């Protein structure tokens, strides 16, 4: 805000830990190191966090360069409060397994829905270009 009062700018967020939500549904947590006018982000010591229910798992990814248009939102993480979470951290393998299971159940439910609609003579439009997560 010192730099540009009355505007929203990422300049003040540099070198702080952020949580970034991408359009494909991924959640990245990293230190915001650099930006540009398109809000392309450079994230350092990034961790991809996968949430399934009350559990989450972190996959360390290193350095990310994110194209600005793919960011849904991002917010600063309070380092003091970061550990104050009711969620339970699990290992990567476990969370990936949980995610797969969740995905599977969702697909099955979707299939049942489509089948039910088909039986009634209706059809859902194909969601090829939609961002689904």
């Amino acid at each position, binding site marked *: 805000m010192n730099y540009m009062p*009355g505007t929203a*700018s990422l300049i003040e967020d*540099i070198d702080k830990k952020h949580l970034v939500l991408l359009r494909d549904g991924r959640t990245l947590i990293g230190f915001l*190191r650099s*930006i540009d006018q398109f809000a392309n982000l450079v994230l*350092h010591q990034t961790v991809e966090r996968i949430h399934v229910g009350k559990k989450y798992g972190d996959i360390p990814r290193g350095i990310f360069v994110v194209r600005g248009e793919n960011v849904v939102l991002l917010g600063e993480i309070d380092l003091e409060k970061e550990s104050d979470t009711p969620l339970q951290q699990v290992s990567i393998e476990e969370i990936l397994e949980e995610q797969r299971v969740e995905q599977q159940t969702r697909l099955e439910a979707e299939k049942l829905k489509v089948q039910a609609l088909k039986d009634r003579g209706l059809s859902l439009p194909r969601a090829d270009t939609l961002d689904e997560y």
Partner: protein
Amino acid sequence: MKTTHLCSQVGVTNTETELQLSVLLDQFSITAAKKVYLLEADTALSPEETAMEGVGQPAKMKCLEGPHLNQGPAKSCGSLAPEKELVSASHLEEEEENEEGEEDLDPDPDLAPGPEEEEEEEDEKDLGDPAVLSAVHNTQRGGLSSPGIKIPDVLGMSPTSLHFLWQTLDYLSPVLFRPKFPSANSPACHFGHQLLLPDPSLFCSLPTSWPPKFSLPSHLTQLHPQHQRLLQLQQHSRMQSPPAKKPWSQQPDPYANLMTRKEKDWVIKVQMVQLQSENPRLDDYYYQKYYQKLEKKQADDELLGRKNKVESLKLVTPYIQKAEAYESVVRIEGSLGQVAVSTCFSPRRAIDAVPHGTQEQEAGAASSQRLRVLHHIEKMFLQLLEIEEGQKDGPPQPCYSEQQSKQVEKLFLALKTQEQNNLEEAADGFLQVLSVRKGKALVARMLPFLPQNQAVSLLLAITHHLPLLVRRDVADQALQMLFKPLGRCISHLTFHELLQGLQGLTLLAPGSSERPVTVVLQNQFGISLLYALLSHGEQLVSLDSSLEKSNSDYTTWTDMVVLIAWEIAQMPTASLAEPLTFPSNLLPLFCHHVDKQLVQQLEARMELAWIY
């Protein structure tokens, strides 16, 4: 002296490294406590543990920025720790480095936290040091696999091997931390202190760049009230925290300021350029108005006695000359057709499309008539907005610049004549405009800009057709907005003009049995206007006694007054509308012209109506 002490402890005999280390320690501000700690670490602990501690220290030392491994001091800084690790490793026999490293280092995490917790007074950050130790552990495991480490000559260590060390730490530490620290603190711990772990690299940030841990937004950001309260609470609690608490509650970030000030300024510049405009009052209307309100509020607060003047910042966009106008269509000699030039304003401009406006057929006279009126109002409104814009700040007034006068004139003509040659139709057009709510708003906003004669003509037109307007206004009830500007106009009326206005009210419209005055009296706007006119007339008469001499006008005036008084008396009190303002000189006026009985009746009615 301190540095030599430390150096000797870890077996640094190389004077060059020693010198560089001392330079580093002196160059960057290390708090006295930390320096003391370094000393104490040397004395209180065994050489092994010192080595462990020592590994922790450089991380807390402030050195130059990270990735520039080629720089001398950084290199030596970076190379220092591996040396220490090597020193600890060198305690062990070289062939069995791995195993012995594990043996010797495993108990250390248990030992080391003890004295550390004694030494340091920070609570949470103790996690850092055991973390560091286990990092050393990892380094031993991981780093030793690197052939570079085995070289005892530290200075000969290549940057690449350092890099490798650093990277392995990055990847190993998050995985390896968990078994040691299953508490909930571990994620924060390993993440926050991961920054310390590349102790072999030891790239720390300059303290000047230290950003506040949690940026409190300025007053210019709108927060949810709960959010704001929460932030205030946090701010208070932080301020009340004991001063003994270290200024940096977490270890300095070795990777800070990767984005240099120059680069930040560049991004800001680009963003500012995008915001520039020739007419910010128009382009950025809401922000400008908001800022004005804010400044006004602050000025008021200051007047009320609030001591501190908080200077609120305003976004000032740089004025940069626009590049010369681009040619949307480029003709290249000798080519056929046009070439589409792509710019930021028109990325793909295909051809010069010529709009073919199709005239819609007049479908239904009434609806099209209404549409035409609405369209006309819109056009006039645009003209009015331009005039208002040209007026700048301050109340609207008849303008002094020529251009503005021209604009106003143009607008007035548009309103009055409506490009109709027939006077009657023009008047009709004016009334139609006034029948629309937006038309009333237009006239109300326009009146202050008009010269007196034009304003008077409008006023007279309104009073002449007041009953009609009142009837048409039943739905909107929007005539009130005309009252204030008209009131101002009335106060400048001449007696003759006033009479003309009043006469309009008394004339019986053909084919209607009802007196126009009755309708007027029942409407709030009408009665207010009437009272205003009467009041002004009375004022004129009382001020200028010569008016009483001129016969015709004066008799008309008295007749009018009597008529109106009679009408008011006739009206049931309930149907008498409440005027917007009640001029004080009305009752005396009636006293002059009518008998006492009537005056009493009037008094009762008007005051009752007023109370209602």
